[in-house]
């Protein structure tokens, strides 16, 4: 296929605005998938993706489309991950394209996440084709939404395509626009090979599958290739394309997209954004835009039954096979025993992994409250990062603690501005910008500590805007803050898994609230259980869970005497110990209470 007949494009849309449905209709119309094989949202292959309406792994599909001009074009539809946690992966997928469909729900209008990805697309110089989906809805307001797109994003909507993906309306028009408006890939067929990795996945038989877009030169089966960032050489065993059925091809020319099989065993060896070149005839320059993946959110994951530790380890290593962006290492907690400290790109990523552990491996887990990464500068000049609040050194040994800040973009109907400003201010936010997209819609920008938004910020935002607000955030930097460690003592014993790092100004309030909350969540025991919050050695708050009032056996007859007497002996032995050791059952809800703010 000549490069001038190739079109590489992706679809940018907010969750639920219909990206997957449009993709499905395109596959049908180009004959790639028979209607009878059609499974809703074909590209989202994981159950979880289908259920949650999000795409976790990118898929690239090669389609053939004969346009009205009589020519047959080769289209590569690159499906991008659709969530704020995967911003970098999105940017790489976008870099593999020349154009993008900007799908906006004609009733909902522009939302924050759409906007974030649109800016990424504009940065990548993509040609944007606005698509107004769901025009069949009675609540559709295409004129207003077009105005929002023009005002808010600054792109012309004169050629916006009205569609109803559900009913198959406008799909043909979309494909014609793709062919006419999106430029063909530019590149140099004779230059040394440069292909960009934009995603990877793991196959039990083939090893790591590497998705690439070729920019210069040609890749052929059997080539010796080098991954320039990771400095690894491989032999190219097989080249595949998805139509969406898997087809093996002999080569990928510049402008084309495909999957490389190189017998790579560990997905961690494959870095998204890396440049693939030939081992012999090497490119001199990397493709731009590479970044190391950075985990933003950490939590401890512990099996409820300690015998499940090995199963959990096994499950984590299997999940890690397919996901290079998540990290895990053994961790020991005084309260929870043996488990793992896991790092994630963001909260959604964390939830997805937790859910898969419970669902696919049948594990019962205790998850500690998520924490961000802190940077700690020590008195002796050394510096280190920590993700477990329990690891924060004592105040007299540290010089400063820094925490990550994010730039938050909130889209909201104008009437909720007050509520959002209050929410952001309560979370230590600094307002940076507020713009009206139209008379009724506003975009507000805040800089906020990541720690303040990782738990329930999004839920709170949805609540105060009655579901109309949308949120996007990106990392900006680390900033020093008056941060202190708040310890929680249950029955006079510190429980490491309940420690958290908080701002000094709010430490007293947080301590008091948390202790009050724990008093309600921890069940009554046979003895009084004090719950305390402490800053260093100073107790700042205390409540007592009263012992059960009733301490009498209901029944005791002939058959019970031996059993009750043995129980009594156990109690006699355990009585002393129970006072000193925190022999208290703490439910999962208590660990998550640490971060909730209700």
């Amino acid at each position, binding site marked *: 296929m000549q490069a001038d007949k190739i079109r590489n494009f992706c679809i940018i849309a907010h969750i639920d605005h219909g990206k997957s449905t449009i993709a499905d209709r395109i596959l049908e119309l180009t004959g790639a998938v028979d209607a009878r094989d059609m499974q809703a949202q074909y590209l989202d292959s994981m159950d979880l993706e289908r259920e949650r309406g999000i795409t976790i792994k990118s898929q690239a599909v090669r389609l053939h489309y004969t346009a009205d001009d009589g020519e047959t074009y080769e289209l590569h539809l690159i499906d991008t991950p659709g969530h704020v946690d995967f911003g970098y992966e999105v940017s790489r997928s976008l870099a593999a394209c020349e154009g993008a469909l900007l799908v906006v729900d004609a009733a909902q209008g522009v939302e924050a996440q759409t906007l974030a990805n649109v800016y990424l697309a504009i940065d990548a110089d993509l040609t944007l084709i606005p698509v107004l989906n769901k025009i069949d809805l009675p609540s559709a307001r295409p004129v207003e939404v077009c105005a929002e797109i023009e005002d808010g994003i600054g792109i012309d909507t004169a050629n916006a395509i009205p569609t109803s993906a559900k009913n198959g309306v406008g799909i043909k028009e979309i494909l014609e626009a793709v062919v006419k408006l999106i430029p063909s890939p530019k590149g140099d067929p004779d230059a040394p090979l440069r292909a960009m990795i934009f995603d990877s996945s793991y196959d039990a038989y083939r090893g790591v599958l590497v998705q690439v877009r070729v920019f210069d030169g040609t890749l052929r089966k059997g080539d010796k290739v080098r991954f320039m960032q990771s400095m690894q050489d491989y032999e190219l065993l097989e080249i595949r394309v998805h139509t969406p059925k898997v087809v093996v091809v002999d080569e990928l020319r510049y402008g084309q997209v495909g999957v490389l099989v190189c017998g790579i065993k560990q997905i961690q060896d494959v870095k998204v954004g890396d440049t693939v070149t030939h081992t012999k005839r090497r490119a001199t320059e990397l493709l731009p835009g590479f970044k190391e993946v950075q985990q933003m959110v950490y939590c401890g994951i512990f099996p409820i039954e300690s015998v499940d530790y090995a199963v959990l380890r096994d499950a984590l290593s299997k999940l890690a096979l397919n996901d290079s962006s998540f990290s895990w290492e053994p961790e020991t907690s005084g309260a929870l025993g043996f488990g793992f400290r896991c790092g994630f790109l963001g909260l959604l990523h964390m939830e997805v992994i937790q859910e898969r552990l419970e669902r696919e491996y049948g594990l019962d887990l205790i998850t500690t409250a998520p924490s961000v990464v802190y940077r700690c500068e020590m008195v002796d000049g050394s510096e280190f990062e920590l993700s477990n609040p329990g690891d924060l050194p004592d105040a007299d040994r540290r010089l400063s603690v820094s925490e990550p800040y994010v730039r938050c973009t909130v889209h909201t109907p104008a009437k909720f501005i007050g509520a959002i400003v209050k929410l952001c201010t309560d979370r230590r936010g600094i307002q940076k910008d507020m713009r009206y997209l139209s008379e009724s819609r506003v975009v507000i920008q805040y800089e906020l500590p990541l720690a303040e938004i990782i738990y329930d910020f999004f839920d709170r935002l949805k609540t105060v805007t009655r579901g109309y607000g949308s949120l996007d955030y990106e990392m900006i930097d680390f900033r020093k803050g008056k941060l202190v460690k708040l310890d929680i003592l249950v029955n006079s014993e510190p429980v490491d898994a309940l420690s958290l790092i908080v701002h000094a100004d709010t430490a007293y309030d947080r301590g008091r609230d948390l202790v009050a909350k724990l008093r309600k969540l921890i069940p*009554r025991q046979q003895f009084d259980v004090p719950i305390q919050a402490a800053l260093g050695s100073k107790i700042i708050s205390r409540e007592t869970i009263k012992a*059960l*009032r*009733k*301490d*009498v*056996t*209901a*029944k*005791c*007859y*002939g*058959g*019970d*005497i*031996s059993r*009750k*007497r043995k129980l*009594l*002996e156990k*109690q*006699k032995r355990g*009585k*002393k110990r129970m006072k000193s050791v925190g022999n208290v059952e703490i439910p999962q809800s208590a660990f998550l209470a640490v971060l909730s703010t209700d």
Partner: protein
Amino acid sequence: MSHDRTSVALAPLADDRAAVYVHFPWCLHRCAYCDFATTARHDPPGDAYRALILRELALRTTAWRPSEIGSVFFGGGTPSLWGPANIAAVLNALTAWSPLSHDCEITLEANPGALESGDLTSYTAAGINRVSIGVQAADDTRLRALDRLHDAAAARTTLREIAALLASGALHSASADLLFGAPGQGFPELEHDLAEVMAYGLPHLSAYALTVEDGTPLAKMVARGLAPPPDDDLQSDMLEALPALLAPWGLDRYEVSNFAKPGHESRHNLVYWRGGPYLALGVGAHGFVPDSAGAGIGLRYDNVRSSALWMARLADDVLAEAHRETIGAAIHRDELMLTGLRLREGIDLAAWRPRLGAEICDALRVRAQLLCDAGAPLRLNGTRLSVTQAGTVQLDRWLLALLDDAGSTVSEAARP
């Protein structure tokens, strides 16, 4: 009054009157909260089981011959499914071992759902003179929630029949079981249950706080959040209120969960609580008999809980015990305290001297005096020690305080 009974020195077990417990392991249905040795079965093999009970009796009674049998208790399971002929046969065999006393209390446990009209009359003809009926609640919704098979109407029918048999003198006494503090039962419902049952003039009532026992279906439901755990505060309030609620019918608390008109205290159960000997026969039954080898005060044994295994062993003429333990003075002290303090009459330390020795009894008395002085809800009247009504809800705690050999100070133990 029961608690003023003159105390008799605890004689060696062998000289005592015997109590006999016979277990019938089958029910029509197993309730979610039950942790007894019970299997649900519609056609229990009653005749075969009777033959094997008689074999166990023969195997167990070679070494011990008490002066007389003071009580027999047919428990379960649902022994009212066994049939009067089998009950009569067992009583006959027991008489051949040792005579039934003139006032022998012979109790049958029964469930309202497992009794046909007229059944009770034929059981009294077979020798039963006391019935203990598992009413549990007097409301259909709550009975279903408790996973019981019978309904309130069935319970009323049975209670009416019992009242008639009491009036005619065919039954000497009768008791009903009620559960309290179950979900859906507040004070008004408790009072309704009591009124429903007491309206039939029963002289004895057992009222138990619903307890979540490990390993029962109820425990699993509570752990998964499918059933609410019992409300500790409500159960405590009810436990404290029960004596006043039952006073109008003339019933007194004589044990934590047992209430009776004077003279209607369960003699059989008093044997357990006062440390007397009892022979136990049948699947999962627990016995306490004299130690014929002479090493200890007595022997405790319990039979296997599997009906199939028990029956197979007895068919081979071998006992089917799961455990056997020789009880020495130190252990027996704990047992006597554990059960004796549950009684309103408490325990008479002087009476224990022959069995436990002076040292143990004197030490207990000193510790009890110290705890009393420190304000614990205990009463030491001469050598008689008891827990006050106010102390009943925390009984197990005071028991621990009294038995604390580890040496925690009295003021620590008595601290509220």
